[in-house]
């Protein structure tokens, strides 16, 4: 059952009557988990033929007063719109939300997303609906220009501010909200991996039969060692660059910059000075420990291999 939102008079009046009793808490700061835009992109790529906008529900947590919102996940909601009217499958939204609640009871509805370069024509109507869902808090609206109309994804956040007469569906205006990405450690690692291939301009590697490989590139997972190697290489590169700059300044070929100089001073003074003897002792001790561990674990592995082969002898 798709509830037609074209005539949402009752819902608007409910919002307004609730608002009369208690001012809806407005979000001030929004944190966005990187998985959300990825999901939105996925949803957009799977849209129906001739559909140019997709919408969905944003889930997340709020601080106690509702001032800080963290958007943690989202799910798509089917909808249908024409110039004059819009239908949102509210039943789908409700049931899916309830199913998700079984896994993660802490997450609540914090708002909704839509794709497009600017706020859609029917956004006020949908906003009314989500405002009801998110009561007693405010609902956040996120838009993402997945069609790249503005040549950038341009993720924007809005909160709805109501005005005008009771029962007036377009009595809402969207005020921009500040948001930041939150980068939990594990997610950052995935992002780094993904970032490794972002420089690839050859977008569609072809497989043997010449089919474009889903217009993306594929990055294999890397090991700790490779990651470390890369980090060291990057570090060396940076040191080399700074070194070059300092040399140029000393030679007089480049104009010295007080700000950079001060920054470098600050950096160098951060380096702890350990007395060489002490350092050597620490270094050797630590190294011995690690080597011991490696030795022991190799021993165990050899044992496991031997016992496996012994099975044949018995």
């Amino acid at each position, binding site marked *: 059952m798709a509830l037609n939102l074209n005539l949402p008079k009752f819902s608007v009046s409910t919002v307004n009557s609730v608002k009369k009793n208690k001012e809806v808490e407005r979000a001030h700061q929004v944190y966005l*988990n990187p*998985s959300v*835009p*990825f999901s939105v*992109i*996925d*949803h957009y*790529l*799977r849209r129906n033929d001739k559909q140019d906008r997709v919408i969905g529900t944003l889930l997340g947590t709020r601080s106690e007063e509702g001032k800080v919102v963290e958007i*943690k996940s989202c799910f798509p909601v089917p909808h249908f719109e024409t110039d004059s009217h819009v239908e949102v499958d509210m039943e*789908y939204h409700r049931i899916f939300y309830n*199913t998700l609640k*079984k*896994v993660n009871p802490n997450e609540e509805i914090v708002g909704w997303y839509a794709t497009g370069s600017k706020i859609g024509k029917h956004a006020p109507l949908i906003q009314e609906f989500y405002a009801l869902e998110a009561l007693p808090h405010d609902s956040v609206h996120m838009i993402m220009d*997945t069609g790249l109309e503005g040549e*950038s*994804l341009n993720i924007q956040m809005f909160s709805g501010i109501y005005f005008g007469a009771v029962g007036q569906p377009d009595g809402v205006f969207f005020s921009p909200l500040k948001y*930041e*990405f939150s*980068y*939990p*450690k*594990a997610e*950052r*690692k*995935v*992002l780094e*991996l*993904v970032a490794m291939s*972002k420089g*690839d301009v050859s977008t569609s590697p072809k497989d043997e039969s010449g089919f474009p490989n*889903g217009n*993306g*590139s*594929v*990055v*294999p*997972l*890397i090991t*700790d*060692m490779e*990651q*470390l190697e890369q*980090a060291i290489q*990057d570090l060396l590169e*940076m040191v080399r*660059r*700074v070194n070059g700059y300092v040399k140029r300044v000393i030679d007089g070929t480049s104009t010295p*910059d007080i*700000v*950079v100089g001060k*920054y470098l001073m600050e950096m160098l003074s951060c380096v702890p000075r350990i007395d060489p003897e002490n350092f050597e002792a620490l270094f050797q001790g630590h*190294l011995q420990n690690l080597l011991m*561990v*490696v030795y022991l*674990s*190799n021993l165990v592995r*050899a044992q*496991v291999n031997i016992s496996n082969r012994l*099975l044949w002898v018995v």
Partner: protein
Amino acid sequence: MAEKVQKSMAKFLAREAEEEIDLTLPKHLEWIEESEGAGKRTVVIEPMVAFKIIKHAREQYPNTVNGQVVGLEVRGGTLEVTNCFPVPAQFRNETEETNYQLEMMNYLQEVNMESNLIGWYFSTKNGRFMQRSYLDMQVAYQESSTNKAIVLVHDVARTKNGAFSLRAFQLTDKFLELIKQKKQKKQDQQPSDDAGFSIEDEDINTEDILKSKLSFNNIYEEIPVSIKNLSLMKVLMYEMEKQQCENAKPTNWMEPGAEGAKDNKNVRTAIEEGGFGSKFDTLALKPINSLQEQLGMMTECIDQYIQDANSWMYWKRGTAKEMSKRQAYIARKRQERNAVRVASGQEPLPVPSINSPLDLSTLEEDEKKEVEKMFKLQKEPGRLNSVLNMAQLHIMTKQTTQITGPSIARLYAVKSFDTSE
């Protein structure tokens, strides 16, 4: 110089971690080698799936979680994982779980997502996943209609301490074949309508393992995992980095318009290249807690291994004792009968020698029955768990090397840093 040493050391350790200890195999064991060479299949996951699994695992940490993955199989054996959904930890019964799964599938289908179940995922800590419960689950998945089901293992602890760890596994055909045989046998023995036989530990003994050529490293087969990056996602990455760089201006020394803004560019690009600001995390000389945990778990596994070995030895000894009893009994019996036979002019029966083991097939039918009745042999303790335990040990020792390798490299890096100053 120090840099060179550190590099070669690092390379050595990295190689060490990847390779088996190489002992040349005798000819009749060459299949071990063969079975280790995995096919060219790969698993490609979308970043969204990785995020979802990470999130699910983190929110329930330290409990382990599981969920299901959907996707499609592309030609050439590549499995594309396009979505996943978590399964709640507590279900009252199985119907509820099935209903939940069906519901989820329907929802995914409605928004044009793939609704083709291709496996499941679970989270673990420090590579601990060679366990019976997981094995049984995977057997169930691979025995169902989609026998290509995979299991994705996300290691929360390793992701915390190192690189993102997600591995894909599949049971080998050998193991599946063995399980199938065993189930068939069981069903023949006690026919019932209930098709859901589960394989118990004691069902698999040494003989089975020998016959099926099963060993600790060919129960599971690892499939390499890659992450897919769509063009739109690349755009997103650029924008996220851009935004982060804007937020990352901590002081005003980088303000444009300051003197020498051109040279500032140097420093600025350096910061931008830092990406998500965490690439250098790996350089931190952090205390190796994970190593400690790892070693603790290794000790546990070794204890378990010794226990298994002891109980097997105990069984072996008991069996040997019973066997010699049987032999002595038969020898005595035969001698008595031979005395009678010689007296009546018949050929004497062969008396089994004490030095060679008793072969039941040389006995007469009634003798066989008699000894089997009198001297009961105990059943061999099951070997499946100990094989799994060995697999676990093997994985953990590998991981230890993988953890210590970078640590040593880091140490050398610090040393060269300290001396070069």
